[in-house]
């Protein structure tokens, strides 16, 4: 039997054609399709609108199978999606547009394992693998074992039949918290291990739910992963920094900074740079998309950006330390040792000089004893008076 298309599935659930078209418009917006060139590339038909592109895909394609694995993580990215206050969209994607195997949301156990294996078998070559949490390579992956299999084996097994891999959250993208210095389990990003499948990173802590689901949708609709930057992040969502779109930016330009979380400046909405904001170096969609259906995002709510979509953001100095501060300020002991070395070399060379001077003086006195004109004493060498720039 032919699989039902997504549209047929939704229609059977009672969605009208009109609501379906509205949904397609929303999805197109959420994927950032308006701005992405593939729409035009696809435009063999006289320039379909983004919503039409979505509608065509949903009326012709069956549900997209997704296998969702979790490694070293806190399940925060899953939480963010399942608690997201836009249930209509995130839930819709996961319930009605995709079929899902999710390790945590399904009660774990041998049954879940079996369901996953069946899913992998049935949709071999078609499913999208979503990875949440960092793989760990130390000691052959024994620091993260599920159902008796090491995370490395699980990852290898699951990517073998995947059409594409989506790493969601900073952990799966770059190692995240488990990868923070000194990284005892040698946690790393999925893309560090998987080289033979297309991998895309959706870093964040957590990843913005709309960005993860938007990327899944993009793959479903366009049949390929969206364009990425050098860190494999989709450009539509990671093309700008938080600072680029920050509503506190005018205060930054004017040099008006909050000095603490409860001072006059903080109340007036001044820039949070001095409170440790990493907005200028953080590429993410927070400031543009905002969280909770456009309600707000951290910087708007008064908290500096932590830089959670950047590699190793845990190791970038304190969260509340300004971005220009020295990452490793020399301790007083180091400073003392450095000064000591300077003193030691200086004193040693001065000693050598003094000895030379002494010898020269002696030679001079012996000359004057012998009488002028006799040689024997070298003039103090010219090279000793240093030249410098």
């Amino acid at each position, binding site marked *: 039997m032919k699989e039902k298309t997504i549209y047929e599935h939704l229609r059977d659930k009672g969605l009208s054609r009109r609501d379906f078209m509205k949904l397609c418009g929303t999805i197109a917006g959420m994927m950032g399709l308006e701005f992405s060139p593939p729409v035009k590339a696809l435009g063999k038909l006289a320039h379909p609108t983004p919503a039409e592109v979505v509608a065509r895909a949903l009326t012709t394609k069956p549900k997209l199978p997704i296998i969702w694995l979790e490694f070293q993580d806190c399940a925060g990215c899953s939480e963010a999606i399942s608690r997201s206050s836009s249930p209509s969209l995130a839930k819709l994607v996961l319930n009605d547009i995709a079929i899902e195997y999710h390790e945590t949301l399904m009660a774990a156990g041998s049954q879940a394992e079996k369901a996953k294996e069946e899913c992998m078998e049935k949709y071999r070559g078609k499913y999208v693998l979503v990875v949440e949490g960092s793989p760990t390579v130390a000691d052959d992956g024994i620091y993260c074992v599920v159902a008796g299999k090491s995370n490395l084996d699980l990852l290898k097994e699951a990517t073998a039949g995947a059409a594409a891999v989506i790493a969601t959250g900073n952990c799966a993208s770059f190692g995240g918290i488990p990868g923070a210095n000194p990284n005892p389990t040698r946690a790393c990003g999925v893309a560090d291990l998987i080289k033979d499948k297309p991998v895309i990173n959706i870093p964040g802590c957590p990843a913005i739910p709309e960005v993860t689901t938007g990327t899944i949708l993009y793959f479903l609709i366009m049949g390929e992963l969206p364009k990425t930057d*050098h*860190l494999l992040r989709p450009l539509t969502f990671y093309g700008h*920094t938080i*600072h680029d779109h920050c509503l506190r930016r005018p205060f*930054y*330009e*004017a*040099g*008006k*900074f909050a000095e603490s979380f409860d001072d006059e400046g903080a109340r007036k909405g001044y820039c949070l*740079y*001095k409170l440790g904001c990493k907005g*200028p*170096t953080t590429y993410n969609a927070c400031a543009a998309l905002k969280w909770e259906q456009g309600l707000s995002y951290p910087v708007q709510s008064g908290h500096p950006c932590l830089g959670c979509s*950047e*590699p*190793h953001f845990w*190791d*970038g*100095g304190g969260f509340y*330390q*300004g*971005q*220009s*501060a*020295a*990452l*490793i*300020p*020399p301790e007083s002991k*180091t*400073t003392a040792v*450095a*000064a000591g*070395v*300077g*003193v030691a*070399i*200086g*004193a040693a*060379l*001065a000693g050598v*000089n*003094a000895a030379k001077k002494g010898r020269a003086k002696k030679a001079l006195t012996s000359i004057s004893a012998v009488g002028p004109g006799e040689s024997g004493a070298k003039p103090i060498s010219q090279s000793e008076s240093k030249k*410098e*720039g």
Partner: protein
Amino acid sequence: MDWSEILRFSRGPLFHLSLIIFIAGMTYRLLRIVLLGWERDRTKRQGSKLWGTILNYLRGLIILPFIPWVRRTFRNNALTFIAGGFFHLSLFVVLAFGAAHILVWQSLCGISWKPLPTPIVDWLAAVGIISLLVLLINRLTHPVLKLLTKLPIWINWTVVFLPFITGYIMTHHLWFRYEVIFSLHMISVCLLLIWIPLGRISHFLFYFFSKTIHGAQAGKRAVTP
């Protein structure tokens, strides 16, 4: 290697190492000068050393630079005087009162103070950059200066100019991604720190020693420094 990694390296280990080299180098330089030997000053004491010192700084740093015609500074060297003066003013304000730099001081010595408004710092930074360019062109075109200028002086100019221009570009978010230009700023600052003890920019420290000693000597003799 991506730029956020380079940034972390240049803000971290590289800056750390440069500071250590800077500190070791400057103590070395200072000690060498101190140990060159002190002539015992046998002059009979006729005035206050402290007052001489204060007077020397007042005249040399606060008063005379602003009435340059008294010593004919203007007539002989107007360009060097004006551009050099603006450059030093700019350097001081940018380093001591730029918000980003105050955070550096805070992380190094634990104290902080209020920054000047960014537009003022920014304007002065531009003045500093222009001054440096003027001084460069002067050096390239002045027939005598050209002959006097050897490699170390070109290095001096470059290592001071680079932090200025990268800092300015960064603040204005021009052309580069922020982490790229920030890394370049940090790397150029590190170059500067390492170069200072090797060259004549070390005058930033020695200046104050000679000013103090000359002032004290003059004060002891009760003459105007």
